[in-house]
């Protein structure tokens, strides 16, 4: 069973990577979600499939019976699921903010920190390179007017 989970991990990893390289930020977020699932499955596989019975101690018993699943990776994955949900939610907010600030969701167009044409071999060309593309932040006066 373990190696089947490893194959699922590989498939999700490849899919997540492919989507993260997309030219639409929403697809990048979808890719992030796939990667989170991939990692969860990897953690699960790393704890091995020791059995298919949920890790509950039988009434009257003091310890887990043989054939129950490994509880430790499950606890770790529970934490991971919740945190990766936080990550996905926050990156979606960032996608939204990026669209508001730059009017685009194409990562190739998000070039404010490193505008295209830099670094140029020729300093003159570097100076003539495109100015930053960010919309100017609203001035206090404009805010008040709004």
């Amino acid at each position, binding site marked *: 069973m373990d190696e089947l*989970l490893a194959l699922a991990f590989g498939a999700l990893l490849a899919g997540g990577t492919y989507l993260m390289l997309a030219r639409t930020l929403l697809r990048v977020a979808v890719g992030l979600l796939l990667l989170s699932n991939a990692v*969860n499955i990897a953690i699960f596989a*790393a704890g091995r499939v020791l059995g*298919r019975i949920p*890790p509950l101690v039988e009434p009257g018993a003091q310890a*887990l019976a043989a054939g129950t699943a490994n509880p430790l990776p499950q606890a770790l994955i*529970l934490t991971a699921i919740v945190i990766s949900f936080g990550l*996905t*939610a926050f990156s979606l907010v960032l996608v939204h903010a990026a669209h508001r600030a730059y009017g685009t969701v194409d990562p190739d167009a998000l070039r404010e920190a*490193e505008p295209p044409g830099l670094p140029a071999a020729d300093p003159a060309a570097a100076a003539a390179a495109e100015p930053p593309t960010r919309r100017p932040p609203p001035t206090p006066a404009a805010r008040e007017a709004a």
Partner: protein
Amino acid sequence: MPDPGLIILVALASVPLLVAAVATAPRAAGWIAAAVPALLFVGFLAAAPAPGEQALGALPWLPSLGVALAWRLDGLSLLFALLITGIGALIFLYAGAYLRGHPQIDRFFGAIALFMAAMLGAVLADDLVMLVVFWELTSLSSFLLIGFEGGRSSARRAAVQGLLVTVGGGLALLAGALLLGGIAGTYRISEIAARAAEFAAHPWAPLVVALIVVGAFAKSAQAPLHSWLPNAMAAPTPVSAYLHSATMVKLGVYLLARLNPVFGGMPLWVELLTGFGALTMVVGAVLALRETDLKRVLAYSTVVGLGTLVALIGQEDPLAATAAIAFLIVHALYKACLFLVAGIVDHETGMRDASRLRGLARAMPLTATVAALGALSMAGLPPFVGFVAKELLYEANLLAAGMLPAAALVANTVTVIAAGVVAARPFFGRPAPTPRPAHDPGFAMLAGPTLLAALGLLFGLLPGLLGRVLVEPAAAAILGRPTEAKLVLWHGFTVVFWLSVATIGAGLAGYLAWHRMQPLLAGVELFDRYGPDAQYGRALRGLQRLAAWQTRAIQSGSLRRYLALSFLALMLPVGAAMVAGDGLRWPGLDPLPLAHEVGLVALVAAGALVACLARNLITAIMGVALVGFGAGVLFLVLGAPDLAFTQFSVETLAVVLLVAVLARLPFRGTDPRSRGQRVADAGVALLTGVVGGAVLLAALAMPFDTTIPAWMGENAAPAAHGRNVVNVIIVDFRALDTLGEITVLGLAALAAYAVLRRREVRGP
């Protein structure tokens, strides 16, 4: 008797004191500064060991690596130490007057005093590592001094060029020194020499020789690494006289001389030194004839002199060692003298173009006299010491086979012409107008060249004294055994004498034809276009283009490319290591998967495929939902119901969020990636998936230790009073993790709120 190691320490310690003193009293800078090398000179005289003896000493530095601050004062070190401090005193005095009123005179003396200390450290070092450290320190201080007038771009270029060439050579030297020390088992030069025969048989010996020779050649401006030296004339003239004729450029020669007892028996050593020495003599000679700038003429004649020295060290005859040392002393005396004279001419007339300076003797009689004395020694006329050295030089070179006698003839002839051009031509003839009215300088500037010229005459009259006191012990150090140096002024009418006569005759004829010959040679553009200087410029531009290309390629500014490069940089080495290290494993199918489990895994993979291939974003979201819920059901059937339920709720929330954000963005269903980009990205993705899967498979094939889950299963009910072990782990065994998880989620919510809030401020 002062310890030589102590003298190095005093020289180093004097640097900051000197800077402070010069800054306080800049008008007396020359006198203050000259006192330091003068005192050190006296110190070395007092510390001098008896001829044939040597003084050794050491302080521990890196004992675990066998590296020590070890010094040795023998004939060769003493000779260099005396030249460095003696000429240093004269030059410091001169520089005080030359740079009078310069706002950064303290910086100048700081750098030049640091240089002097570094030189002393290098020539006294008995430890190879210590030698390299001080060697690089001389390169650094040379950089500061060449670039002293950093406002001029020529000075900056020359400073960088000198630094790159000499420090590059220094790196080769470091590699050579470490290899040599590793092979010999010690870094002590005095001990390595004793194992010369053992070393010569080592298979790496040729590599070591080549590395050390490259370092020495770069420092001593051997062709084709010579072009930094003429360019270094951008430095103030005292620097040119001190670093770039009398001392630093001879450090390479010193190193070759010092290691000659180790390498001397190897044919490669002899071939490299005599070959490149002869080449340098001829190249320097031809290039010297193209120049009109007094300093550049002298610089190229220094290149000739350095080639002569290297070729002499490469020869095996004891006479060559004697000739090398004699010529080294003589060259330092007359070349420093003539550089200082050129500096006086430049300083007092405002120009140093040999083709336009005429008739200065009337306005500068004292300078003209000193120049004549220096030039006669340089040209090798009796009774000056230059004659003695030249006779020896011819005698040694006649013993050698091949090109050397011819190269020596060319070199000496051009030396005569250069002496005439620098020291005779500007002073004779009808006075020509100069930017400043010419006059003799004051005592401080005349004292140095006068003393140097006088020594040239004195040693010429008493060659035996020079030979016994200075030449013999130093030549013995080159040979590694005692030798007898017979320096005499008059040999009789031998072949050597007639060669001298021919040299002077040819030189005189060349001097008279110089004003016609020089423009012709200067007109040959071949040298300028394809010479090493042009190649250096080309190499530097190429390097800059390469750097710009590399930065554009790696730091492209494209987020997608960064991401792809990050995946590749992680996965390629891991994959290569797994394949190369035979790390691929297949753990086996135990326990066997049930049919519905296989179906669920296929469903998850299919969901990923749908998410990737969907043209429409909604379809992609459906694909990722398929993955999430599929994984949830998989968890359920594999005994993890808690996971499954969390996964279901979180997955639902995520899909809701995705669609909510999608609703606020302009709907762009299709992915604007081109076909080529898709294929490339798919390649990166496949590699990542395959390597990641292989890593996990290899990890799963490792033996599994159930101690921790077993402990948790045993203790959950008795100790934590919980029957759901997963819950017990989360709220009890690993409760801190859960606290961290809550914190992360809270912070994400706060940050999301902060980002979203900006919209409300701006309003509609």
